[in-house]
Structure formats: structure tokens, C-alpha cells
């Protein structure tokens, strides 16, 4: 095993080992647990830094383990994996800080942080998976690792939400598994290849390939919350805020979207998928999801539920980008992988802050929170405006490139979808901002927490949303600067469309 093959493994182990160790930590050992958490998160970040540098310079990092004949566990890092890995590593660090602050005084912390780390390990595994079987393995592991997080609170609601989550994801997992095996039985064992590896299969397999795509998409669509497979997501909102943040911004939903990207670009190849007529299907599903999610979000009073439906809608931008032929749309879709992540995690952090500090859980209770918690509300506003697509926040860049790509591909209807989506986003986000900033605050908050630091809430809760909100702003403002998400995604697109 060389150093180059060690790096992907080390990136996974950097959260796996602390995760397993945390299970053994006694409940009262705050310090040790925190130390393990932070050591893992920082190590991972450092390793990912090395990886970014290496992949940028064209180094190949690959580790292989034979599981069975024709079944290999492959970890390899290409530009696309780096995008997802760095997103998860960065946001994991922030979320860990937040989670430590959020759950400081709640039960079962060792169990929580253990599974939290396992969840990130699985996510990173998904990012680094070098072939479809490996992807499936980590994808299922992610399901397993997130289930305890969703059920963590232990209330009947939480257990119910977790059960629904599981029912959806495991069913999706079965579809994905069957699709992956069927594909392998046609193509033989293959690694992910830029441009796909199926285009030289014989014409006779056309029907089978379409069916396989549908199966795989069904499997991935569950996690990516494509309508009508999205039902689990609003239900799993019962989880603690850091989990929702992680679920929505980084881990679960993104794993599905990332899988769709892999499927389109590195398994089928976008041109071949287009030739099979599959992109139309994907685009239609994504558009439907974008509009449906926003419409449902409009009707929600629960803040987290509204955000959840917003996720349903926003994540499908990624699928939409993948469904349009051409490098520019690819850029728009992929960059939203990062942009949606940082914006949505900001929103969930803020929602968590309102809940934890003031006991505010519903939109209708948010009158005047801007006066009580101005910094949190500022971060929330940035995230929300970004979601609408207001420049210079990150979401604008995604929408701009999606629009450009759509026109390039002569798919003008996408502009209409984008426009409608922006309007709907505004319709469910702006009233929140209006309440928060302009309405008078009530005499007493539903359940104000006695713990309060120097600022409006504890530092560990305040800094993470501020930092991610700054990311949202910077990702948009410095979009054309080197090593910005956009620039990195352009690198991926250049490699995908030679």
C-alpha cells in the first residue's frame, strides 16, 4: 500500500476511528469526547487539504480491496469526489462545534457523537467510492448510521420519523442494489469513468439500460428526495437541529444528489444518457420536485418543516443541472451541491438557535426575533436570500449557470422553472424575514433558555451559523477567484467534457 492509496483510506478513518472510540467514552467525559471529535474533524480537514492539492495537480489517489470475485471496494479521488469530500469535511467541523454546543446538556451524547462520526465517514466514503458497488456499500452504511441520529430524541415522534426514514431509504437501497447488480451483469465490473462506460454496450441492451437507470434513479432519488420519493424528509425533522443540518446540507440528501451526478456523468455518460432519452426523464422529475417542494413549503408553519420542503426543492437543482446536456449546466448543478449545502446548513443552524435559545419552533412565533437575536437572524437572512437567488450570495451563481446552461442546450423551459422557483422561494422565505425584522417582539418568548453567553446565545451556537453564512457570501462574491467552488466545478466540467 503506497502513500497515494493510503490517503483516501486515512480520510475515512479520520472520522471512523474517533467515532468508534467515542462509543466507548463514558457519558460524563465531556472533554475526552470533545477532544476526539475535534481531533477527528481537524485531521480530516488537513488530509482533505492535501487531497485538494494533489488532485488539482493531477495526482491519482486510489485504494482497492477485493471483496469477492468481480466485487471490489475502490476508493479513489477525482475532482468530483474532492468537491463533496471538502464540503463534508468543512461542514462536519462546523457542525461538530455546533452539536457540542447544542447537545451539551442532553442525554446519550456518546451514542450521538459516535453515530455522528460514522455518518460522516459513510458520507466521505460515498464521495470517494470509485465504482458502483463501493458507492452502494457506503450508501447503505449511511442509512444505518443516520437512523440512530434521527431517532436520537427517543420520543414516539422521533422513533416514528426514524421508522419512516428507514422504510424509504431501505426500499430505495434495494432498488439501487438490484440496479447496480443488473448493470454489473451487463457491463462487468467497471470503475467510475469520466464520460461513462456504457456507450459501447450493444444496442440490444437499450431497454435494459433504461430500466436500470430507472431503478438506480429510484434508489438515489429517495435520498435526494425527488418527488414522489421525498416523504421521509419532512418526517425526519424531529431529529435535533445539528442532525437536520447535517442530513439536509451534507450527508443524506447530498449523497443522493451526488449519486445522481455520478450516475449521469460517470456511469452512463451524459451524452449516452441523452441519447437514451434519460435526461428528459430526470429533468422532468427534477422540475416537478423543485416546484412541488416549494409549494408545500409555502403551507408549512413549522420552521424546520418549511426548511425541509425547501431542501426537497433546492436539492433537485443539482439533478436539474445533471439533466441538461452541456458543460455550463453541469457547472450550475454541481456548484449547487456546495452552495445549497452551506446555505441550508446556515438556515438549520439558525432554526436550531431559535429553538434552543427562545423555544421558537414555528414561523408564526418568529415575530421580532431579529431584535432579540440580530446576528442569528442576519445569518438566516443571508441563507434565505441566497436560496431565492439574490446576488451576491452563493445561490445566485448556481442559478445563473443553470440558466446559461439551459439556454445553451436550447432548453428554455428551464428558465421558467428557475423563475417560478425563485418566486416561490421568495414567497416562503420573505414572510419569515418580514416577521423577524419588522414585527414587534412578543412580551415573552415561548421557552427562553437561561444559558446565554456574552452575545444573544451561547458562543458554540452562534459562531457556526455566522461562519457558514460568511461562506455563503464569499462563495458568491469570490466565485471567480481561484479555488472557489465555482472554479473547482469548472475544473470538473473541463475534465468531463474534454
Amino acid at each position: 500500500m503506497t502513500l497515494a492509496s493510503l490517503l483516501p483510506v486515512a480520510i475515512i478513518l479520520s472520522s471512523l476511528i474517533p467515532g468508534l472510540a467515542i462509543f466507548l467514552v463514558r457519558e460524563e467525559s465531556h472533554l475526552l469526547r470533545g477532544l476526539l471529535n475535534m481531533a477527528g474533524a481537524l485531521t480530516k480537514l488537513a488530509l482533505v487539504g492535501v487531497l485538494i492539492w494533489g488532485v488539482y495537480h493531477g495526482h491519482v489517489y486510489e485504494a482497492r480491496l477485493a471483496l469477492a470475485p468481480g466485487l471490489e471496494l475502490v476508493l479513489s479521488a477525482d475532482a468530483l469526489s474532492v468537491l463533496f469530500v471538502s464540503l463534508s469535511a468543512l461542514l462536519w467541523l462546523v457542525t461538530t462545534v455546533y452539536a457540542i454546543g447544542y447537545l451539551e446538556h442532553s442525554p446519550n451524547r456518546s451514542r450521538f457523537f459516535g453515530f455522528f462520526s460514522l455518518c460522516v465517514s459513510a458520507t466521505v466514503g460515498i464521495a470517494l467510492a470509485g465504482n458502483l458497488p463501493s458507492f452502494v456499500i457506503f450508501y447503505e452504511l449511511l442509512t444505518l448510521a443516520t437512523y440512530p441520529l434521527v431517532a436520537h430524541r427517543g420520543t414516539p415522534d422521533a422513533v416514528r420519523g426514524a421508522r419512516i426514514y428507514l422504510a424509504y431509504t431501505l426500499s430505495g437501497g434495494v432498488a439501487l442494489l438490484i440496479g447496480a447488480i443488473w448493470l454489473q451483469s451487463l457491463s462487468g465490473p467497471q470503475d467510475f469513468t469520466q464520460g461513462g462506460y456504457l456507450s459501447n454496450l450493444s444496442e440490444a441492451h437499450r431497454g435494459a439500460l433504461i430500466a436500470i437507470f430507472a431503478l438506480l434513479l429510484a434508489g438515489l432519488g429517495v435520498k435526494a428526495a425527488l418527488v414522489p420519493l421525498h416523504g421521509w424528509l419532512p418526517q425526519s425533522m424531529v431529529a435535533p437541529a445539528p442532525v437536520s443540518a447535517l442530513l439536509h446540507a451534507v450527508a443524506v440528501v447530498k449523497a443522493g444528489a451526488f449519486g445522481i451526478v455520478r450516475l449521469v456523468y460517470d456511469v452512463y455518460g451524459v451524452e449516452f444518457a441523452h441519447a437514451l432519452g434519460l435526461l428528459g426523464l430526470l429533468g422532468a422529475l427534477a422540475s416537478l420536485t423543485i416546484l412541488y417542494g416549494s409549494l408545500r413549503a409555502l403551507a408549512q408553519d413549522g420552521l424546520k418543516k418549511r426548511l425541509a420542503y425547501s431542501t426537497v426543492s433546492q436539492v433537485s437543482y443539482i439533478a436539474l443541472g445533471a439533466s441538461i446536456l452541456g458543460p455550463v449546466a453541469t457547472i450550475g448543478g454541481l456548484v449547487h451541491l456546495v452552495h445549497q449545502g452551506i446555505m441550508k446548513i446556515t438556515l438549520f443552524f439558525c432554526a436550531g438557535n431559535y429553538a434552543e435559545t427562545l423555544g421558537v419552533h414555528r414561523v408564526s412565533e418568529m415575530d421580532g426575533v431579529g431584535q432579540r437575536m440580530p446576528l442569528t437572524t442576519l445569518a438566516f437572512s443571508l441563507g434565505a436570500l441566497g436560496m431565492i437567488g439574490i446576488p451576491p450570495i452563493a445561490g445566485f451563481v448556481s442559478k445563473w449557470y443553470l440558466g446559461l446552461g439551459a439556454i445553451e442546450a436550447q432548453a428554455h423551459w428551464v428558465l421558467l422553472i428557475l423563475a417560478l422557483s425563485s418566486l416561490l422561494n421568495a414567497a416562503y422565505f420573505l414572510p419569515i424575514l418580514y416577521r423577524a425584522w419588522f414585527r414587534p417582539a412578543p412580551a415573552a418568548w415561548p421557552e427562553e433558555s437561561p444559558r446565554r453567553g456574552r452575545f444573544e446565545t451561547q458562543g458554540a451556537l452562534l459562531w457556526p451559523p455566522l461562519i457558514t453564512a460568511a461562506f455563503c457570501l464569499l462563495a458568491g462574491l469570490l466565485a471567480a477567484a481561484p479555488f472557489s467552488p465555482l472554479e473547482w466545478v469548472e475544473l470538473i466540467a473541463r475534465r468531463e467534457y474534454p
Partner: protein
Amino acid sequence: MLWLLPLVGLWPLLGAALVPVQRLWWLPAFGALPALAAALLAPLDSSLELPWLLLGTRLGLDELGRVYLLFTALLWTVAGIHAACEMRGQRHGRRFAIFFLLAMSGNLWLIVAQDLVNFYLGFALMGLASYGLVIHGGTPANLRAGRVYLVMALFGEVALFAALVLIAQHLGTVAPSPEGLAGLDDLSIGLLLLGLGVKAGMAPLHPWLPLAHPAAPIAASAVLSGAMIKVALLGWLRLLPIGVEPLPEWGTLLTTAGLVTLGLALPVGLVQSDPKVILAYSSVAKMGFLILMLGALLAEPALAPLGVAALGLYVAHHALVKGGLFLGLGLRKSASRAQPLVLAGLGLLALALAGAPLTSGAVAKDAIKPLLASAQWPWIATAVGLSALATTLLMARFLWVAIRIERHPLPGYGVPGAAWGLLLGLVAAFPLVLGAPASWVGDPATLIPGVLLALGVLMLTRLWPALARAFINRIPPGDLLALITPLGRWAQALWRSLAPWLRAGRQDLAAALARLARALFEHPAPDPERLLRHWPVIGTLWLAMGALLLIAFLA
């Protein structure tokens, strides 16, 4: 002096960030100073490239941009002084200051921006921040105005976004150039007209304007009606292929739209009783006039060099005058001293707006004459003449209302008054600086009949007050909106009658599912396997399976 350009937008932003500091209440007054400096000092037609910012940023000033920056910065400064003094120590005063500075930043930034993305950035920032200005008062009427404004502004922004993306795709870059804009397709042009048309108050996209401009505090109304509304024209002049190729169909369309706007806004404005609403309708009418001229430009590329300059002059004139009118109205309402001077100033501004000789209005009208002369239809000149007559009437109506306004004098309007005086001076000096003596006279042909007509109307209403009551306030501000509101109410009623059905259906379904789940899980059936443990059954199964196996092996 190119380094001044980034400051144009950043400085007010910085101010907005510092507003929460108690002692810095005066910040709004100084927000536009770098812009003023840049307008005077920055070199023309050179640009500052910041490739790492957004999707590649280019800042710069061309001739039109300088004119825009100059009058916009001037107006914001005067309004800023007014705002700072008015809001000092008021409830939510600092919130107002933040939104004021944010809108200022957006407005100024889009003028110096030479690329599509930054133009949109400024436009969006200005549009959203204005919402905070419109609803500042917090009354139900303010909130309604804000809602209407926000909904329409968002529609406009979304359409503009789509147009900009299309243009960027057409150009292949985000920095527009006249040559690159040649051959722009109809979809892009249509969306651009739609997107900016909302901001411009182009009929039928104008109903928000007579609601929102009066709803805001005076300083905000001044910049809304004076500066921000003009942005649409700037966008059109920059992004339409003007002077590159003739677009007669679009020209006709714009001309028609301008005429409709004029024809709608002036009569409706005349029957209003709130002076701010009258001014807002006058703004709509003026924008209609400008749209009419733009239509002529679009149809005839040869007019472009002259026409753009003329439009710039006209816009500058209108911005200063309209801003001055609003601010003067504010002084009329609130200032405790020097009311005769205020009234005299208002009179001067009203005359200027009506295009009286020796005023800026006369110069602006004179400049725009060649455009009018080349209009497609000969009767357009007549229509414009009629509109000038109506404008005079409208201004007379405004003065009439302003004089009889209910006053609430407050202390502390000395500095804003002085600033307003300065603005008046600028308006007065406008013809001397910018116009040849030949243009000072303007076109008294419409003014004198107008004044006479106004006097006539005054006499009539004095004789039969019922006549006035029959007209005044018969059309609510936001005219067309009154037609749409019932539709919304019907839709709501429909939804309210349908919702219980839907909800009941969903609940029935959920209950049925829950019953099924209970039937399956909650009452376990008696162990069905007991049967499998009875010896006769075991024996039978054993025999049957043996037989099956045997048959299968021998088959």
C-alpha cells in the same frame, strides 16, 4: 481616480453596517459622497477590472453613467440629509437608515457596474432594500403597499434575471458591448422590457408605484420617485441594441406602451387628493413619456447619439425636480419656519416640471424635440402636447393640494431645508449651465393654455363643489389593482370552500392506513403455526413433499 468606483457601493454598505452605533445617526447624509466624487473625478470610458469578484467584475463610467451617477448621488445626498434629520431618535429610525443606505448602495452600484451580474446585484439590492423603506410606517396601508411592491418587484427581478442570462448567453460574456448586443432575440428583449418595466412603472405594470412611493417616508419617496425609477431606463439604454440595428416592431410596442402609460397616469393622477400620490402619478406619466422616446430610438438607430444624450438630460432634470418636489412637500408638512419660501420653491419646481420657460423643463424638452419630430405617427406630437397640458394641470392640482395641506410642524428641519435650497439652486441653474439660450424658452404653447385651463377648473369647482366631489378620489391609488383585487378574493373564497374537502380526504386516507396498520400489528392473530405442529399435518406435509421431490427428480 478609478479607485473611487468600488467605494461608490462599498461606502454606503459600510455605513449600513455602522448604523447600529448610536452616535452615527448622520450616516445616511454622507453615504453618497464617494459617488459624487467619482462622478466628478473618475475618468470617462476607462474601466476597473476585478476578475475575481463575482463572475468577473468591470466597473467604469461612460457619458450616460456619469450623468446618472451625478444626479443620483446628488439626490441621495439631499434626501440623505433629510432622512438623517427626520429619523434621528425616532422609533425604528436606525432600521430605516440601514435600508436607506442599502438601497443607496444598490442604486449607485448598478450605475458604475459595467457587467450584467453587478448590474443585477445593484438592482436586486436596491429593490429589496426599498421594501424596508416602503413599509417603514408600519400602518396596514403601508404594509399593503409594501406587499404589492414586493410581489411586483420580485416578478420584475425574476424576469430581468432571465433576460440577463439570455443576454449573457448571447454575448458569451457578462460585459455587454453595443456590437455584441446586435441580433438579440425577441425573448431576451421581451423579458428585459418586462423586467425593467415594473421598476419603470410602464403600464400595465405600474400599479405598485402610486401605492409604494407615497407610503414611504418623504426622503425615501424622493429617491424612489427621483432616482430609483430611472434605473430602468439606464438598463434599457445599456442592454438594448440601441443605435446598432433598427427594431421597428419593438419600437412601436414601446411607443404604444408609453402612450398608454401617459394616457392612464395623467387623468388618474388628476383625481387624487394625496399630494404624494399626485406626484407618484406624475412620475409614472413622465416615465411613460420617456418610454415613448425610447421607442423612437429603438426604431431609428440614427437618432441614437443625439437621443441618448437628450434622454440623459431629461432624466436628470426630472430626477432633481421630482426629488425636490417630494422633499419640498416634506418641508411643507413638517418644517416649522420659512413656509413662504417653501411654497415658492414648490412653485418653481412645479413650473419646471411643467416645462415653463427658463426652467430645466424647458431645456430638457428642447433637447428631446428631434426625437419627437421623427416619431412614427404624426399625431404623436399632438398627444405629447396634450400630455404637457395635462401635466400643467396636474402640477396646478398638486400646488392646490400642497397649499391646503394639514401641517404638523416639528423642530429640526433647518439643515434639510438648507440642503433643499441647494437643490433648488441646482435646478434653477440647470438651464444656465446645460442649455443654450435658444432653448431657455422651451414651449410655452402648452404652458399657457394649461395654466388657463387650471384656472378655469378652479373657477368651476368653486361654483359647483359637487362637480369636484364627483371626480376626486373616484379612482383609488393603484388604479388597475382595484380590478384585480376581487379576483384574488374569489380565489381565496374558492380555496376556503375546497380546503375542508381536501383535508377531509387526506384525513380519511390516513385513518384508513392507520386502521390497516393496527389490524396488521396491534392484535396478533392466534399463532397460525399451531397447525404445522400437529402430527397428522406434519406427516401429510412430509409425504407430500417426498412425493413432490420424487416427481421432480424423475420428471
